[in-house]
């Protein structure tokens, strides 16, 4: 007979493991009344494999919120229904999951697709307009998709990597006593050798050049479990700061342990949003202490919405997380932030198109997404004041606030060490987005949408 704690582990994980093994599509819909209106959502999760820590937390947060909304009567009576498909964070499987999840068991087309990863987003991005599905990149993916005139079906509502690198440099400047003190400083951008790792470079090169800094780019071949050569180079370069752009807990934890081996101060090491969560910090042990990580959705359990989900959903035994202690952590709160936007967009779509109490189409959902206006008052109503920055989207502007908060790992949890901060020159970042999107439109004969 298996010990009770082992059984507790086995039961919830088994679904994910079997799903991965057989690439099954498993209906995860909440029981709803037969006559209740439903809104189908695709959930391309990554619950097994090297990116499982990220996937279980993020999609767990999304599913917990949808469950919570359903337990509170849905969105004007419209209940969420969803299906999961295991991608293992693999671009090819993401495409397969997109095809499998496109239409739900109730015959509805999904409104949204959220790959939780740049490789997957790039793999399906060109299908969005054709299938009329919104690609909701929550702080990842193709940066110039923030230009809604060229990418009408793609959003980056939790802000993108160019804003993020700008914010990091601004934070460093504050630590150094001002931008004027950045002249002559050396910064290493240590990144996974992929498009994702190089994504922030256009903005980073320009800002560091403008500030008179020296930028050294060092790449790590995936999977990144061995980084000794890169950290030896860093030791030789003796930089003032290192920005780390990794993916997967193996690579992320290794970055910090190697920094410790080389005696590089973690208080000078700044991690990307997808590089630093509790699952990345804990395996690195003491080596992680002092490391900075950028947040687009702040972790914590004190937000009223998180408390309410714990009370209602987990209190009723309907929570999605195998380990409820992970509720309120970085990835779970990020998933919650994403799902809140889905619900807000549906609510807006129902209102704009006079369909309250009825399901909406992909095109209507997109209109609702563009109408999202997360004012401080609205964030207060939703119970997530301070968790995400206030922002508004529009037909042209598909990115969020462009603001982040800096966190620092204290050995046990993250301390929030800054207020919401944006890049030093948001106008320049926006121009960079529009130039890049415009170039893409020109190369692909795309006529930008007229938003006026």
């Amino acid at each position, binding site marked *: 007979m298996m*010990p009770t*704690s*082992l059984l507790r*582990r*086995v039961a919830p*994980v*088994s679904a*994910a*493991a*079997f799903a*991965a*093994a057989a690439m099954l599509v498993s209906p995860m819909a909440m029981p709803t009344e037969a006559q209740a209106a439903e809104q189908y959502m695709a959930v391309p999760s990554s*619950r*097994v*494999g*090297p990116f*499982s*820590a990220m996937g*279980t937390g993020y999609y767990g947060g999304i599913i917990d919120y949808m469950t919570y909304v359903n337990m509170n009567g849905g969105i004007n009576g419209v209940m969420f229904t969803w299906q999961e498909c295991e991608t293992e964070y693999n671009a090819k499987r993401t495409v397969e999951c997109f095809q499998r999840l496109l239409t739900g068991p109730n015959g509805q087309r999904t409104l949204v697709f959220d790959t939780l990863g740049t490789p997957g987003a790039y793999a399906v991005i060109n299908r969005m307009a054709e299938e009329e599905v919104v690609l909701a990149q929550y702080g990842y993916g193709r940066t110039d998709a923030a230009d809604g005139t060229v990418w009408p079906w793609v959003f980056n509502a939790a802000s993108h990597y160019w804003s993020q690198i700008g914010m990091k440099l601004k934070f460093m400047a504050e630590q150094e006593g001002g931008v004027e003190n950045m002249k002559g400083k050396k910064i290493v951008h240590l990144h996974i*050798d992929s498009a994702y790792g190089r994504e922030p470079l256009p903005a980073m090169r320009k800002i560091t050049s403008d500030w008179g800094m020296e930028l050294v*780019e*060092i*790449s*790590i*071949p*995936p*999977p990144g*479990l*061995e980084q*000794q*050569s*890169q950290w*030896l*180079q860093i*030791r*030789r370069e003796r930089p003032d700061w290192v920005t780390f752009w990794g993916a*997967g*807990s*193996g*690579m992320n*934890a*290794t970055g910090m*342990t190697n920094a*410790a*081996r*080389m*005696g590089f101060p973690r208080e000078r090491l700044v991690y990307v949003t997808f590089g630093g969560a509790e*699952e*990345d910090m*804990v*395996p*690195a*042990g003491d*080596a992680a202490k002092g490391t900075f990580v950028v947040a687009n959705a702040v972790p914590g359990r004190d937000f009223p919405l998180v408390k309410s989900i714990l009370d209602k959903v987990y209190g009723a035994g309907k929570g999605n997380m*195998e*380990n409820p202690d992970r509720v309120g952590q970085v990835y779970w709160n990020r998933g919650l932030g994403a799902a809140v936007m889905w619900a807000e967009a549906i609510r807006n779509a129902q209102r704009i198109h006079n369909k309250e109490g009825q399901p909406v189409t992909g095109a209507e959902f997109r209109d609702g997404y563009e109408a999202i206006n997360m004012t401080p008052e609205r964030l207060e109503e939703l119970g997530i004041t301070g968790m995400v920055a206030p922002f508004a989207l529009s037909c042209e502007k598909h990115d969020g606030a462009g603001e982040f908060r800096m966190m620092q790992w204290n050995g046990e949890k993250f301390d929030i060490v800054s207020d919401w901060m944006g890049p030093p020159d948001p106008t320049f970042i926006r121009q960079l987005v529009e130039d890049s999107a415009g170039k893409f439109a020109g190369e692909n004969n795309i006529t930008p949408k007229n938003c006026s």
Partner: protein
Amino acid sequence: MADLLFFLEVLIGGLLAGVMYSLIALGFVLIYKASSVFNFAQGAMVFFAVLSFVGFMELGIPFWAALPVTVVLMIFVGMATERMVLRPLVNQSEETLLMATIGLAFVLEGMAQFLWGVEVRRLDLGIPDVPMAWLADTTGIFVSVFDVVAGVVAAIMVIALALLFSKTKVGLGLRAVADGHAAAMSIGIPLKQIWMLVWATAGIVALVAGMLWGARNGVQFALVWLALKALPVLIIGGFTSVPGVIIAGLIVGASEKLAEVYIGPYFGGGIELWSPYVLAVIFLMFRPEGLFGEKHIRRV
């Protein structure tokens, strides 16, 4: 002088990293010696072993009790592999056995996550992964205490395994089995027991490798990818030589670090992923059986 010291630091770091690669490669050599098959499941065995070890500790079993419990589990895995995977395939081609190990890899990866979950775990062996203070103070060279301990552990395992294969009847039987299953059985060598023993030993080697790598980088799925690091080591050292993988591990570790640091910047960095394979191809051209591998002469 500073340049020379830096070169030495890269070299020493590379050699110590190479020892860690050798530890992974050892498991492959054991299986290859017994069944002439490249065990695709070795990375999965590393993951399964160390995740089970940490999982047992989470159930409340103390460190020193969890270790023998996991060893017993890996012996059981070895026995089950012999009974359910290898025995039905006696006298089948090497390609068939290779495919069987690919299947085994999927089973072990799935089983590990099924039993213990997918969360990343921390494993603290109590060995600090920080530079040796006296060396850093006297020479300015940073060498991790952890790497030195790992090197010593790997050396002990290699000596023990080398003695097992050269000084015991089991080792002799192993070599006979590798040459031909049917021929070995016809002269009374107990094939089943030999296979069982070897797979169990490979499981224990996987556990040690997993503990050292898991303590450095966290116990997580990415450990299955470590097998990629062992392939060039095996090509250079020879698939059948225990001392060979140690020498090859040192060559691969040192060369990839030196290449990354001194040549990498000219190629945009990130060359240590493929530079060991370039070295392996060069070895294949001049010594296809590897440095210490057995030269096979076949009548055609």
